[in-house]
Structure formats: C-alpha cells, structure tokens
C-alpha cells in the first residue's frame, strides 16, 4: 500500500521506542523511512523537537548514509546491483537498459512519479548475477531482454 495514500502516520511511537536507547537516531530514521517511503523534512523537524536532537545533527546523518532518501520515491523502486559479480555478468548493461526504458538516470524518479531507479552496491545474491530488486523482490539472472516485461508488470500491478 502506498504510504502517501494514508493519513500522515504518527511518529510518537517511533520517538518513544528509540528515545530510551542510546545512539538510536539511525534506527528511528529507518522506521520513519519505512513509514513514509523517505524522510520528509517536516518529520525531521518534528523528530528533532521530540528527541531533543539538533536538526543539523539529523541532517548530518541523513546526508551521509546512502540508504536514506530525502525525496519521495516513485511508486515502484528498481534497484540494479552493480556489485562485482553482477558487474562482470552484465550489470552495467542491465542498468543502462533500465535507464533507457525509463528515460531517467541513477537516483532519479520518472516525471509521472511511477518509477524510481537506483544503482546499488552488492546485495549479496551473487550466485544469481546480474540482479535487480524490483519493489523489494529480488530478480536474479536478469538479462536486458527481461527489462520491458518487468517494468510492464509493475505498471499493471494495483498497489
């Protein structure tokens, strides 16, 4: 279910859970990203107030770690692995093909907000290289030829 379709989730539970633990800012941010699909600025400001952490401190962390997204992602996320094994087995070509079909580059969302594309580091499924993760599903041995169908399947899905 798209997080944006729901009313704005309440982060007080997140705050309560992680305020009690030392150094748990990153864990709190993970939960927020799971709730919203990214880390919205308004939520960051609220988190700063409630966890009594300077906003700058939170942004230090958000801008350092690759995992956190500061922009709303597209409805579907396509992550192409460019780890060593996937790279050797055609990962670059797979990624280029996805870029071409979607008309966007790395870490970009299509104008209609349907797809977000990113290259990622090794996801640890090297026996199935080359690998793409589409909406959380790991797709192994994915050739360039499989790209149009995979993308079409996403568009057909009602989320």
């Amino acid at each position, binding site marked *: 279910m798209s997080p944006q379709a729901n009313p704005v989730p309440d982060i007080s539970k997140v705050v309560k859970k992680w305020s009690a*633990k*030392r*150094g*748990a*800012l*990153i*864990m709190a*941010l*993970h939960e927020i990203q799971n709730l919203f699909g990214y880390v919205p600025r308004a939520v960051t400001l609220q988190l700063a107030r409630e966890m009594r952490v300077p906003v700058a401190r939170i942004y*230090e*962390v958000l801008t*350092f*770690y*690759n*995992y*956190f997204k500061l922009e709303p992602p597209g409805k579907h996320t396509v992550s192409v692995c*460019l*780890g*060593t*094994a996937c*790279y*050797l*087995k055609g990962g670059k070509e797979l990624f280029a093909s996805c870029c071409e079909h979607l008309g966007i580059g790395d870490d970009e969302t299509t104008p209609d907000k349907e797809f977000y594309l990113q290259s*990622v*580091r*090794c*996801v*640890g*499924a*090297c*026996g*199935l*290289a080359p*690998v793409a993760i589409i909406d959380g*599903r*790991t*797709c*192994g041995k994915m050739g360039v030829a499989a790209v149009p169908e995979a993308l079409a399947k996403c568009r057909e899905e009602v989320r």
Partner: protein
Amino acid sequence: MPLPTLTRDNLATVEAEARATPRPKDCIRVCVSTCCLAAGADRIHKRLVEEVRTRNLDIEIRKTGCAGMCHAEPLVQVDVAGTDRAVYGHLDEEKAVRILDEHAVGKTPVRKWAIDGIEHLPAADTLEGIGPAGHQYRLVLRHCGIIDPTNIEDYLARGGYSGLRRAIFELGPEATLEEIKASGLRGRGGAGFPTGTKWELTRKAPGAQKYIICNGDEGDPGAYMDRTVLESDPHAVIEGMLIGAFAMGCSQGYFYIRAEYPLAVDRIEAGIKAARRVGLIGKSVMGSEFACDMEVRLGAGAFVCGEETALIASVEGHRGTPSPRPPYPSQKGLWGMPTCINNVETLANIAPIVTRGGAWYAGLGSGRSKGTKVFALTGKLKNPGLVEIEMGTTIRAVVMDIGGGSATASPIKAIQTGGPSGGVIPAKFFDTPITYESLAELGSIMGSGGLIVMDGTDNMVEVAKFFMDFSVDESCGKCAPCRIGCKQLMLLLEKVSEGRAEPGDLDTMRQLANAMRRASLCGLGQTAANPVLSTLRYYPEEYQALLRTPATAGASQ
C-alpha cells in the same frame, strides 16, 4: 511444549530430548536464504507443504538456510529412509512435486536433476562430502542448509550452546580466553588480527562497562558469507557473542547489520528473542551470575562503516567516519568504553573452539593461518556459491575443482580477492596455498572472502576502474589522502582507459597510491589503491596498450 529456562544442569537433557523428539524421520529440506527465495524457493516450499498435507504424507518439509550451492538455486535435499539422499537443483514447482512423488514417496531418486551424483552423499545428517571429496571442510557452515534457522531446538539438538555452558561453568573467563588464544583464530573480516589477542586486550582494559559488537556490515561487493551465516545459523553467531562477552566481561552486545540484509536482521532478532526466552540472554545467563543483553543496530548504506571506529560512530548515531588509532576500540571504543568488534565468521568459529579446544582448531590449517575460511565464489565459473576450505588449500582446488572451472569459452585469467582493498591473482599462481601470508605476498589480501573469477574477456584496467569508482563513492571524505587521492586516481584511470594517458601518468598513479597507503586515516584509504597497483603489477601490457604513443600524440597536434 515450550522449552524450559536453560541452565548448566538441564542443557544436556534438553539437547538430548530435542534430538530424540519424534519427528518424521523423512524430510525434504528447502533452502530459503535470500538468493534461493529470489530464485523461487518460497513457491516450491508452499507447494510441497500443500502436497504433503492434502496427501497426508509423513514427510516433513523443512526450511533451511543456505547450502552454498548457489549455482543451482533453488535447491531441495531429500533425506528419506530406505533410499539414497540427494540434493536437487535448478528446480521449479513441477519438478519439486515429481521429486516428492518419485524419490521421497517412490524411493527412486531422480538422477537427472541431482547435483554432484547421489553416490557421493554420506548417510549422516550433514553436507560434508558434497562435490569432489576432501576439498570442503564445513565448520563455520556446519549447520547451514541442514537446520531450520528459525527453530532454536534444531540448534540445541546439534549441541548448540554447550560451548557457552562449558565456558561459564567449566572454564571460566580466563581459561576460555586461553582456548581462543591457543586456537590461533584470526579475524575473518579481512585484517586477520589474532582474535585471542583482541579479546585479551579488551578484557584487561579498565572500564566500568564493556561492549562486544558483531560486525555484520559485509560491504565488499561480491561477498555474502556473513549474510549466509546470519540467515542460516543465527544461533552460532549469538553463542559466539555470548562466549566472547563472558570471556571479556561485556554486559552488552550489539549486532551491527547492513540495512541491505533484511532477512539476516529478522533471523538474528528472532534468534535473540528465542535465546532470551530460555534464559540464554538476560540478567542471569543459564542461571549463572553472568548478565548480558543483546540488540540489533542497522547500518544505512555506508561501506566505510565496516571499519571499526566508523562502525562505532554509526552505533553511536553519528556519521560513520573513522577516528585516529590509538586509542584502539579495545581501550576506548563505544561511548569511550572498552569494545571488541568481531566479524560474523570469526564469531561462528568460537563455540566449536570452546567445545573441542583451541589445540584442536590449531591443528587445522597451515602455518599461521589456522582453521578454515569461507569464500563466496562468483564470476565466470561453473559453480558459483559458498565454499569453506581448510587454510592451505590451493587456489586451483577452490576455483577448478570445487568451482568447476570456467563457465565460458574463455579460460580463467585471474581471480580477485579482498574486494576494493584487494588485488588480482593471475592463473599462473593458482597452485599457491591459500593463507593470509601467501595472498599478501602476491599483492592481494585474504579479505572477507569474496573471490571473483575472471576470464579472458575481462579487461584489467576496467576491473581497476570498477573498484576505484566504488572507493571514490564510499570514501567518507574526512581525510585528504583518501578523499582527494581516490578521486585523482580515478581520473587517471579514466585518462588511461580513454587513451589520453602517457607513461608518466602510470608513475604518478604509483606515487599517489603510495601516499594514500601511508597517510590515509583508515583501511579504506590505505588499501583503495591496491586493485590499481595489483593490475599494474601483473598486467602492465593492458595499461601500456592504452597509452598515447608518440605517433598518435603527433597526429593530434
């Protein structure tokens, strides 16, 4: 019946009961690690469960972790009385059902889908002997692909937590420490620092609170040994952590796991919960005076957080930038307290060492490289997957015998170990026994276990560029030698591959590499130039071929 709280006195009984629990002797194991799931294993599992239920068969369909034969995913293992065992690969739902019918029920193995030949499998409940006999030694991977990683009773039935029991009630902290020292175990994350020494330093350091951290931030692209152990045998790592915490006097442990490994995170969290429920984690471990709690903390996509001091910064909730050492974490680590950080694979070795003795472990391996090493074999070979070998096994045995040799028309050219910190090893050196020292001599490192196989179509300048690009991305930016050095080295490599470089540029690259090695704040910067240096050393002609010759230089004026 729920398990009782485990104590010194009842552990052996509970273990024996778990072993003897009447469960269908016959079972089909379905591997459900991340990559097998990606290959469709959950559909196969569901279908088999359904078939067994509707037909009322007395066969258990058991979920297991990774059996390591990743080239043949999805896999099932049939273990049924009255017929041979077999491991089947490249399956789909229909094939799995046929195997159920013909082999599990009909007692006739379906040879055409079996891997490695049925004749090689021993009758016992183990995966030893899979593939060419005598090459693999499954110690760290002892339970992977055999037990259900979500069921603590499976772990107990195989003697789980008897290492912890021995440590607490028979050895005590000092003697436990001595066993680890005697074993000669060295850190499996790549640096190879003697684990016993690290534990001793942490134990001796003054501090009101000590911490033990499991480093599950496996960041080398192409390496997934730690993911597998965390997913397939979480209790092996939990037990290792508890033994370490006991030996060093740590009352709190953290599992720092990459966010990109959600299944590993789930399995460890479930394992911690199960262990806590039976008194293995908490205020009184196994009824003793030893208190220890454990928690999971997630990474967030930063390779540098695999470095000890950066990892500590990350657990503290900061940007993951390293700090100068000394002081080392064993003196001043997490929140300024003595902290020991150990790799997942290192921890998975601890319980067997405590149970069977450090001297036993030191009898395995070669020279100063004791024990075994798990490798993730990937790339252009027939049988990519996880393998575990005794240290001292040759590269040839791993790549050609276990790995099956080249999967393409092109012969194998070289391997790469150590990820972005490592180097290439050309085929002519494949008779080298694998040890920390021998790989270092060849200009590479043991690394965490990623072993990439390359064939004749793989260009070495491109390989160097791939790793350099990674290091440029992952450099935290704190120190100039790495921040600027990686970028400049990358620009030079691009200059080479675009045909704009001159011989002097290769010398500049070497100088840069030297400066980075000597002046960078942490291992990332210190070793980022290794792929470049190593490919330059062994394949200078590939670089030379791309240089501007006097003829082309003249033509472009």
